């Protein structure tokens, strides 16, 4: 794969639930966990999705239905042609002693990161936070993984709570060497805040999302206020160091016009 558009037939679809599915394509690529692809649904739109797994002859993305595009994606069947480009951006760096923190669909790239960590025989732990059990993809696979702790906001699976809440206890049990997080921005900032309570800080690798149009660093759509860093090129995974100077954390994201909506206008999913 490359930045040029190529179309592939969907090889298979894994249905986690009605609004949460994984799609596999016959495609071999070199990609770091956390890197993303642009996925084109002909006639609809093209949007960024992280790789949730890379296998011998297949790659996989996991899509959660949140709006028009992702809802339409739920109708995609094996055999359908879909455009794929990428991988784009900078991903996570697997490190021994890493703790993965995922919120909701943000766990998709962490699944690929966990795959890499295991392949490289690096010890890690993974805290998965979901609103409710329904939001959990790959449930059977995860059940068999001793590294995984699942928490849910409604206690429908695992303990009740948010992913960040369990970090302090985990660190007491065994010091966290690095934090790798992916999920809603408030969660990322909470993880960052947690890491900063230590001295020295716990290094963080946080995967951000911004509206994207080009993914090749040219349209400026995904640039972060304060530094001009491009989430599509320098990100989506940014380090604590790169976060310094960014002034827009937690504010509503610029939309397709480039305008940043006021807090009121912004529609939040997740």
């Amino acid at each position, binding site marked *: 794969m490359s930045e040029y558009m190529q179309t592939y037939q969907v090889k298979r679809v894994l249905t986690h639930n009605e609004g949460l599915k994984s799609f596999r394509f016959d495609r071999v690529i070199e990609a770091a966990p956390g890197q993303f692809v642009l996925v084109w649904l002909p*006639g609809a739109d093209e949007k960024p999705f992280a790789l949730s797994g890379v296998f011998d002859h297949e790659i996989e993305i996991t899509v959660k239905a949140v709006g028009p595009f992702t809802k339409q994606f739920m109708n995609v069947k094996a055999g359908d042609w879909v455009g794929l480009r990428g991988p784009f951006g900078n991903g996570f760096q697997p490190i021994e002693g890493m703790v993965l923190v995922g919120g909701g669909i943000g766990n998709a790239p962490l699944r690929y990161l966990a795959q890499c960590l295991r392949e490289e025989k690096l010890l890690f732990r993974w805290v998965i936070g979901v609103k409710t059990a329904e939001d959990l993809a790959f449930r059977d696979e995860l059940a068999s993984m001793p590294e995984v702790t699942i928490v849910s906001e409604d206690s429908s699976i695992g303990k009740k709570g948010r992913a960040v809440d369990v970090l302090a206890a985990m660190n007491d049990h065994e010091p966290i060497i690095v934090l790798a997080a992916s999920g809603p921005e408030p969660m990322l900032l909470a993880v960052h805040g947690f890491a900063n309570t230590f001295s020295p800080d716990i290094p963080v690798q946080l995967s951000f999302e911004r509206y994207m149009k080009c993914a090749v660093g040219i349209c400026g759509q995904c640039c972060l*206020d304060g530094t001009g860093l491009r989430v599509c090129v320098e990100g989506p995974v940014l380090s604590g160091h790169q976060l310094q100077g960014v002034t827009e954390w937690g504010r509503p994201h610029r939309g397709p016009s480039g305008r940043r909506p006021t807090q009121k206008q912004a529609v939040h999913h997740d």
Partner: protein
Amino acid sequence: MINRLHVDLAGIELASPLVLASGVMGLSASSLERVAELGAGAVTAKSCGLEERKGHPCPAILPFGFGLLNAVGLANPGVDEMVAELRAFRLLSDVPVIASIFGKTVEEFPEVAARIAEARPAMIEVNVSCPNVAGEFGQPFSSDPALVGEITRLVRARVSDIPISIKLSLQCLSLAQIAKACADNGADAITAINSVGPGMIIDPNVRRPVLANRMGGLSGPAILPLAVRAVWEIAAAVSLPIIGTGGVETAEDVVQMVLAGATAVGVGTAVYTRGLEVFSTINSDLHVFMQERGITSLSDLKGAAHV
């Protein structure tokens, strides 16, 4: 040390001839400042119109091996938001910033120009390459000398104290004629060229155009010879300074543009093909090129290929 790269563009002092082209990293003060820090002599903001527009769905920007196809459909945050970003930029940086504007009708141009002028940009670029919805064949304003002249005149009348550059496209019958219309109606400079075509890529499996808008303008290295010729023709027709734009990736490309008649040189797609370091790389290679040949000012090369 003398700065061999210094140029005077319609009275604006640039420390380097390289101008970030409109539409590239140009939506926010922060992204513009990042490019300014990396060595651009001036930065151009994304073209804005009267109102916010979401533009076309994606794919809207498509690499194709020799550059990009783009059809962002005039996506822009609207002139008021842009005024705020430009003001913020001017607090952050001393590098000259060029605002870029478009109108959906002839009358909108002076309106947007007057509003963007509130941000006191170093220059206002008037992007006439957008389609003229009123026209018979949907051609861009830039294809009609009368319309380009009229837009120039109206903008000039509303904005007297900020230099204006008219941004032209190849899609016309005679660039010389269009350039004269700009000069005759008070333009201070010409930016040439906008993206070329449009072009179309069709996916053989899906059997439909890949761009959501079906077609989009070509940019990048493939269009360099077209842009150099355009600059040549404009320079032969009028004496206005030209921001030569299209496909520039290297110091030699910059020299070609200047030899053809450009005063400054736009860099857009090279941010994708070469990365953001393209500005510092070109600056230092250009310095070496000039030093080796004992050239102390780019103005000595300007138009020198007109033999």
